[in-house]
């Protein structure tokens, strides 16, 4: 991403993602569902309780017996703790909350746990990253491991480290999740994208975040 895009990201007075952060803060404090609880009722101030959380997701959830991402974790809190209807994937409210939680880990290194529970999902994600797919028969690794830094249609190919999700993509003119970006990649190689929330995406997210381990979280970032 260029200098101007980075300047947009680093300045809270001009980063358009701030609009979602403020919405996220309101939602954090708003009581919801039959339990009439807000996130703050259980978690207190997000600045303290959510610090470091986004840097550890996707992670293994004991109740679900699988790896889930941050949006799914927020979804579980909504349905099981707040007893409220689930927030749709890519809905403004879910993105705002995810961005708000993610923001509390800005500057912290990404830290994905690899143990016998997460390993199978990580390996599935790694296999997906290296597997050719779509009409163009390309694997993620071919561009993002093998040709990063080179130009594709006028823009440099990044290494594809998801350090700033959910982020404001200039192309979307709005905030979006990592899954939305992955769908763009699938469409880019002319493969049929999975639906939101598919385990295939979560496994890929897990692998990508593990691959970016140690890098600082930039949520909410700005990208072209």
């Amino acid at each position, binding site marked *: 991403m*260029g200098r101007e895009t980075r*300047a947009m990201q680093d300045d809270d007075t001009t980063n358009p993602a701030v609009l979602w952060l403020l919405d996220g803060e309101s939602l954090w404090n708003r009581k919801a569902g039959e339990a009439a609880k807000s996130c703050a009722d259980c978690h207190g101030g997000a600045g303290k309780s959510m610090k470091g959380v986004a840097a550890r997701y996707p992670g293994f959830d004991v109740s679900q017996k699988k790896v889930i991402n941050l949006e799914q974790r927020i979804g579980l809190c909504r349905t099981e703790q707040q007893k409220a209807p689930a927030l749709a994937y890519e809905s403004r409210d879910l993105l705002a909350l995810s961005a708000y939680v993610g923001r509390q880990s800005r500057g912290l290194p990404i830290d994905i746990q690899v143990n016998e529970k997460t390993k199978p999902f990580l390996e599935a994600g790694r296999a997906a990253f290296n597997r050719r797919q779509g009409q163009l028969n390309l694997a993620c690794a071919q561009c993002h491991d093998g040709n990063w830094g080179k130009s594709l249609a006028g*823009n440099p190919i990044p290494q594809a480290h998801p350090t700033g999700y959910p982020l404001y993509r*200039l192309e979307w003119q709005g905030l979006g999740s990592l899954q*939305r970006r992955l769908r*763009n990649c699938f469409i*880019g190689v002319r493969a049929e994208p999975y639906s939101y929330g598919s385990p295939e995406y979560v496994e890929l997210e897990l692998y990508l975040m593990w691959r970016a381990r140690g890098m600082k979280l930039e949520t909410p970032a700005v990208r072209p």
Partner: protein
Amino acid sequence: MTSRRQFLVLACGALATGAEAQLPPNIAALRQAALQEAVRKVVGDVPVQRGKVKLELPPLIENGNSVPLSVAVDSPMTAADHVKAIHVFAEKNPQPNVISAQLGPRAGRARIATRARIADTGTVVAIAQMSDGSFWSDSVSVVVTLSACLEDGLI
């Protein structure tokens, strides 16, 4: 969500009827004319001089959807001598006007910044309207690129 079949039927239909879906062959000339007309609406018959205005935007634009730009005008911003308005135009956009800002001595400094949509590689023009009735301008040529992996993906 449209089915692929629906889309293909419509795409063929659009090609057959032509007109609306396609751009006219003299599009560059039409857009130039539209720009001149938009500028003329602002300045009338007064000649626009080059100078005093500094238009800044990145020469290579990563994504035309959101391009940071700033316009600064060299002016004391006093009651007797100030910038009344700043107008920005983009030549290659479907419609040339971007923003028109009304200033005045209370601004203290003649500088605005915003983010614009620039549709295609071409020229962006900024015109300052001064309190003495004169017009000054600056223009920048930009190259607009597009991301490789898009959502709609039908290029």
